[in-house]
């Protein structure tokens, strides 16, 4: 089926071409531009959905430009369960953020550029997900850096430029380190294919640790893990809110995805177990969880707080993946899914507050819940999911990670149990007061949102938020089912079971 094998390319090209058309259309009509970009995202989503039956039948979809790149390293796509799962969620979240940005962006400048680079970023992220080998993956990975850089510096203020500079140059530097790792892998085994579990099997010696370190540096930078998070808390908040949602919700996930592919496809579970690095990686994840939560508590700016919260959630994903057990990986995947929904929702809410009331600071939020009920309800649901309150999807992910830790061994499980409790507590510390403040406190006398009328954000902004909130609830309730239908096969494919 030629059509089917072309689907990944169509999924990649539709936002690319759509973005360029939208950019041109934007010079004539703003509405047309937004419509085109939404349609492009929807096309991309539908195309990815169309791939589902093939994948569910246990096949993979491959597409190669065999004659274009270096002979052994074609720019090729291969869609398996994991990329497909992530691609579905990401492209769906993109539709929402495209809808959301229609009204949100109307007060900002350079809207055409924003629209174009949002689409380009989507295109690059999808390329990263579907890449067949590390070479193609790295190409799209680097493109994402540049396209998202434009999103970060959108405001063009000195702070935005400084944050963007940090993002770009650290990203380039870590990208080069990763590039070095890729070269090492290629010279060691002569292939970069991601289809085989553990292409480095058979390589011995310290070079393995060098490769692991260099590759992870690149992936963890994009993911915003603890020692490499330094850009995240300045870059994510400074971007316009739809972009923040995309950066925190999607681009960070791209880093997590690459990290999981490195661990499970380049190295493979068996090799990592013989390298005895699992515990160190888990420790790193734990540090990230703690650090992110601790820093989030100290913040007053809502978006910065959310950004730090991302650091801690990425720690969960990394920890779950580093446990090297099926359930742990399952937890990591659910966490990716959950964080994508919840963090996008939270940033949408933060954007709604800025849009409607001009609020960026947590302390100014007293009583806002009465004026903007939908926004704050969505916020509450997402925040509760972040904390890990049972019926919501956030709980499921934590649950699986705990089970994974148990599988990995008792000391680890006890240690992780403590980390989990503490971090949930910390999450509660920074989310609960906001909720209470927003709903149950009267408006402070020097409140800056007096002029806000008691109506909520426009429909085009409210709908994406609500959809995300519903998603959080529904998938939380159905978590047992979804994990059997979707996550389990994915995990089994990744683990090679």
């Amino acid at each position, binding site marked *: 089926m030629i059509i089917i094998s072309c689907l990944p390319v169509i999924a990649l090209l539709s936002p690319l071409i759509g973005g360029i058309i939208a950019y041109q259309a934007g010079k004539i009509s703003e509405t047309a531009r937004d419509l085109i970009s939404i349609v492009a995202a929807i096309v991309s989503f539908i195309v990815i959905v169309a791939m589902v039956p093939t994948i569910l039948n246990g096949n993979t979809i491959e597409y190669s430009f065999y004659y274009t790149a*270096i002979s052994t390293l074609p720019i090729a796509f291969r869609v398996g369960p994991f990329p497909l799962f992530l691609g579905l969620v990401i492209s769906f979240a993109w539709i929402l953020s495209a809808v959301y940005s229609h009204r949100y962006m109307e007060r900002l400048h350079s809207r055409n550029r924003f629209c174009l680079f949002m689409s380009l970023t989507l295109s690059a992220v999808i390329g990263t997900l579907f890449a067949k080998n590390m070479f193609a993956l790295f*190409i799209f990975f680097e493109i994402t850096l540049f396209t998202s850089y434009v999103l970060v510096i959108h405001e063009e203020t000195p702070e935005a430029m400084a944050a963007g500079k940090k993002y770009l140059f650290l990203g380039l530097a870590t990208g080069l380190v990763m590039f070095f790792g890729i070269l090492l892998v290629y010279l060691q085994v002569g292939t970069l294919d991601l289809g085989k579990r553990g292409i480095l099997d058979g390589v011995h010696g310290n070079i393995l640790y060098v490769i692991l370190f260099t590759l992870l540096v690149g992936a963890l930078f994009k993911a915003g893990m603890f020692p490499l998070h330094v850009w995240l808390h300045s870059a994510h908040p400074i971007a316009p809110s739809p972009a923040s949602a995309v950066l925190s919700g999607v681009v960070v996930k791209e880093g997590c995805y690459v990290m999981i592919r490195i661990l499970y496809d380049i190295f493979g579970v068996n090799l990592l177990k013989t390298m005895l690095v699992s515990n160190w990686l888990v420790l790193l994840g734990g540090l990230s969880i703690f650090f992110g939560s601790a820093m989030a508590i100290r913040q007053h700016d809502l978006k910065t707080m959310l950004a730090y919260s991302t650091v801690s959630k990425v720690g969960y994903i990394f920890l779950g993946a580093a446990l090297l057990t099926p359930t742990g990986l399952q937890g990591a995947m659910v966490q990716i899914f959950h964080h994508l929904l919840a963090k996008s929702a939270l940033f949408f809410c933060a954007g709604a507050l800025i849009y409607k009331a001009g609020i960026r600071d947590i302390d100014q939020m007293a009583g806002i819940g009465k004026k903007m009920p939908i926004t704050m309800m969505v916020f509450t649901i997402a925040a509760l999911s972040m904390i890990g309150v049972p019926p919501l999807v956030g709980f499921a992910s934590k649950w699986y990670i705990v089970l994974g830790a148990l599988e990995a061994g008792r000391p680890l499980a006890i240690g992780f149990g403590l980390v989990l409790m503490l971090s949930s507590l910390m999450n509660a510390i920074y989310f609960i007061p906001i909720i209470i403040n927003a709903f149950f406190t009267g408006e402070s006398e020097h409140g800056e949102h007096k002029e806000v009328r008691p109506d909520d954000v426009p429909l085009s902004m409210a709908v994406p938020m609500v959809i995300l909130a519903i998603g959080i609830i529904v998938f939380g309730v159905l978590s047992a089912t979804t994990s059997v239908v979707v996550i389990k096969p994915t995990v089994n494919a990744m683990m090679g079971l």
Partner: protein
Amino acid sequence: MTWASHLPIIVVLIPLLTAYITPMLGWMDKRICNPLVIVSTSFAFIASLLLARSVLTRGVISYHMGGFAPPFGIALVVDYFGAYMCIVISFLTLMAAIYSREYIAKELHESKTAPYYTLLMLMTGGMMGASVTGDLFNMFVFFEILSISSYALVAITGKKVAILASYKYLLLGAIGTSFTLVGIAYLYILTGTLNMADLSVRLASLYGVGRSSWTLLVALAFFMVGYSIKAALFPLHTWLPDAHSMAPSSISAVLSGILIKVGALALIRVLFNIFQPEFVVETIPVTSMISWMAAVAIIVGSLFAISQVDLKRMLAYSSVAHIGFIILGVGLATGYGTTGGILHIFNHAMAKGCLFLCAGAIIYKTGLRNIDDLAGLGNKMPFTMAAFTIAALSMIGIPPTAGFISKFYLGLGALETGTWSGWVFIGAILLGSLLTAIFYMRVINNIYFKEPLHREDVQRDETPLGMLIPILILAGGCVIFGIFPRIPLSLAEPAAKLLLGI
């Protein structure tokens, strides 16, 4: 197909003959110069492509001028590398010629039109000749043709600084010329021949034979110094920033894009064609020495480029760094490394050519040279600036541009050596890439994301089409050959293998 067998001499003769016709026709009507030059470079380009095709199908072509077989007659030997260089040279010259039509009308006095095109064609002829010749002294002569015409072209605007820059270039260039002449003399004493293929055979018996191996070393040292000056390899690059930034932009593009690469070609010919790879790599580690110099060139050139405020000067220093990439790759003397170095000749020619043409377009339209003044140009000249950005990304080595592919090959080559110095070299390559990003991103940020000084001044004011087309073609090439790198690699890879004898 008898004419096809004469292709090696045709590619040299087309530009040289044009150089003689141009002043005559230009004397009658100045407007005829540009179409004439464009047509003739197009023919040279097509001839180069045909030459490359016949090299790819039939292997190395040996052409004996006047029918005298070497070592008595002068031979033209076109291998993969020579054919590859011919394509790059004629392609970039064609772009520069198309661009010149409108650019020169404004930049140069009318009376200089005919000399400008004459010199351009002479320079092209010299470069083509140096690429295809199989005779060492012949190479010297072609080098003189291209050098002298390039000295004159740097000074052609007649501006104060340009003349001084040209003088500086000439002084160092003349020293380089003399040094190569001495080197040729030594080799001639030792072997009694000047034919490159013959030389390599006769020299092979002399390696390690007492006094003659010392003579060989002296000869090699003279060649290294002489051609390093022409290639602007650190620390002999001092003439480059002045000369390349002061020349008219179309000429800067040719100088930075290919002329210094012809110097690199001469270095490669001396190292691998005349001396054997085993000799320069193992017996006497000349290649590793020039690799170290090239690694320093990458870092120092990039650091100097960061500190520049003048756009063209920054681009010129960037050329110092990138000739470092090329020489480093060649000096690695591994399959991947040398392929990467040769590939980068092509990729850098396109990217740097594009950048200089864009810089010229900026000067043409606004008269601005200072990087900090470029704010708002992204709206004013969207296509030119988009091309600039793509070319800059290619210089940094961001996928999917062509620069990434050469970076990939160079990195593999450095690691392939398997020594600790290989790790240092890859460090230099990666650091160089990062430093390159620093100064190009500064320009890009200024162009797109900085508040212009007077916003109301910013109106759409695009470069004239005649100048825009070559810019866009080159920028397009940066992307196309990044996605389809096999096209240049189909020549670069066998070229490297042939040079290294693997």
